[in-house]
């Protein structure tokens, strides 16, 4: 399971060079790595690109070991798909590195950028309902995770989990999900009302012109290096 709260903590508290780079540069980095994965025909080139990303993540003081574990998670699902495909080991290796390299790039983006900054860029291009929905989902997610922790503690304390009693456990868990949903809707409604009172009008796009900074060379340079490697080593 991806610990959303921990990812948010890394994104908000990190001070490394990747965290200091602008969101535009990091989105550019992601696009360059996605382009590299799309263009890749040679598993060795993209595998080297994956290693470069890991080295950069470690050098930039990102939690590279956890990120590597999470990116390999993508390979598990690729294997399920691979069983239905023809082709030899090389073809299957291409598919696996095509899966884990973009996953690592996405993780590098999210562990170094707080979600509101990503949403501010998205809300500049998305319709109001989608932008507001994304933002409310993000805010409610943490409320819900917090409530879920309390619910699990409460149900244990009150003897709600009985080993061996599948029916009783399932009924309690389902009622718990129902209760969490009802309470999440109520708290989300209150939160939205407070935001509207404080002047929220459905948009949270960043003001001012988009500019590149000195720190942006790292994500952009890394993305370009991976793409060039894949293009040259075909």
């Amino acid at each position, binding site marked *: *399971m*991806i610990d*959303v709260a921990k*990812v948010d903590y890394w994104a908000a508290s990190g001070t490394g060079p990747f965290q200091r780079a602008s969101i535009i540069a990091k989105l550019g980095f992601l696009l360059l790595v*996605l382009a590299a*994965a*799309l263009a*890749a*025909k040679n598993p060795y080139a993209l595998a080297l690109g994956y290693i470069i990303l890991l080295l950069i993540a470690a050098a930039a003081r990102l939690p590279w070991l956890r990120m590597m574990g999470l990116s390999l998670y*993508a*390979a598990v*699902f690729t294997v*399920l798909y691979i*069983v*239905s*495909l*023809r*082709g*030899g080991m*090389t*073809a299957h290796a*291409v*598919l696996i590195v*095509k*899966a*884990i390299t*973009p*996953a690592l790039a996405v993780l590098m983006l*999210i562990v170094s950028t707080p*979600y509101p900054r*990503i949403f501010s860029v998205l809300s500049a291009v998305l319709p109001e*309902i*989608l932008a*507001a*929905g*994304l*933002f*409310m*989902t*993000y*805010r*409610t997610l943490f*409320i*819900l995770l917090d409530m879920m922790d309390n619910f699990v503690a409460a149900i244990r304390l009150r003897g709600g989990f009985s080993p061996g009693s599948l029916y009783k456990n*399932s009924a309690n*868990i*389902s*009622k718990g*999900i*129902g*209760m969490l*949903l*009802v309470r*999440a*809707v109520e708290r*989300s*409604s209150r*939160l*939205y009302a407070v935001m509207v009172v404080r002047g929220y009008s*459905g948009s949270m796009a960043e003001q001012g012109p988009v500019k590149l900074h000195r720190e942006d060379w790292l994500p952009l340079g890394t993305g370009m290096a991976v793409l060039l490697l894949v293009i040259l080593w075909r």
Partner: protein
Amino acid sequence: MTHMHIPDFVLPVWLWVSGFVVMAAALGLSLLQLRSMDKKKKIPLLGAISAAMIVAMSLEILPIAYHINLSVVAGILLGPALGFVAAFIVNLMLALMGHGGVSVIGLNTILLGLEAVLGHTFFSLLRRVLPVFWRAAAATVLTFVSTTTLLIGIVAASNVDPLRFLHADEHRLAVQEGPVLISKFAVLVLSFGVVGWIIEAAITGAVVKFISQVKPDLLSHRLHDSPDQGRVAGNGQ
């Protein structure tokens, strides 16, 4: 298993690009329907249910690696148009968390959005036939049978041209290796899927029954009611 965990660029380009095109069209239609909705009431509901779906999808049931989706619950509580929007938000956020690829957001949104739409439709159609728990559970099973079939269809379609992943040398190797093994994939997905459908149906039934007892107004998803109209309708009941 109706939400595809297929990572980036594993599927052929034409397939995931088509996914984005269909998703954009369906999202456009949904947003057109939602133009005059009561935002103050519906956007917090959209946020809460999308967040609940993300939390549910983050929890895997071992050993079958299944996670509940709550997509039918979303369809029942939000209605088809807002349910489809929730599916897009969930998939976008999951992709940003590294769960599922960026390039398959389109196809995953179609699958998850279709679950919301079909779940709502089946739940409405069975209104006079079954009590709430069984209605929600039956709607879930019917929905998942349909969307799992679509998922297998998508993977089968991707197999039409698997050679585009490969080098010229491997093209020859691939041709020699014989027929596409979609049946193997279908058997895997369906055998795990049946267990998943039962778990999801039981949870969806219980959650919807609980909501119908505790906060039944959540089950009415009229989009365009102003708060005043809602109060009048509530008094009338």
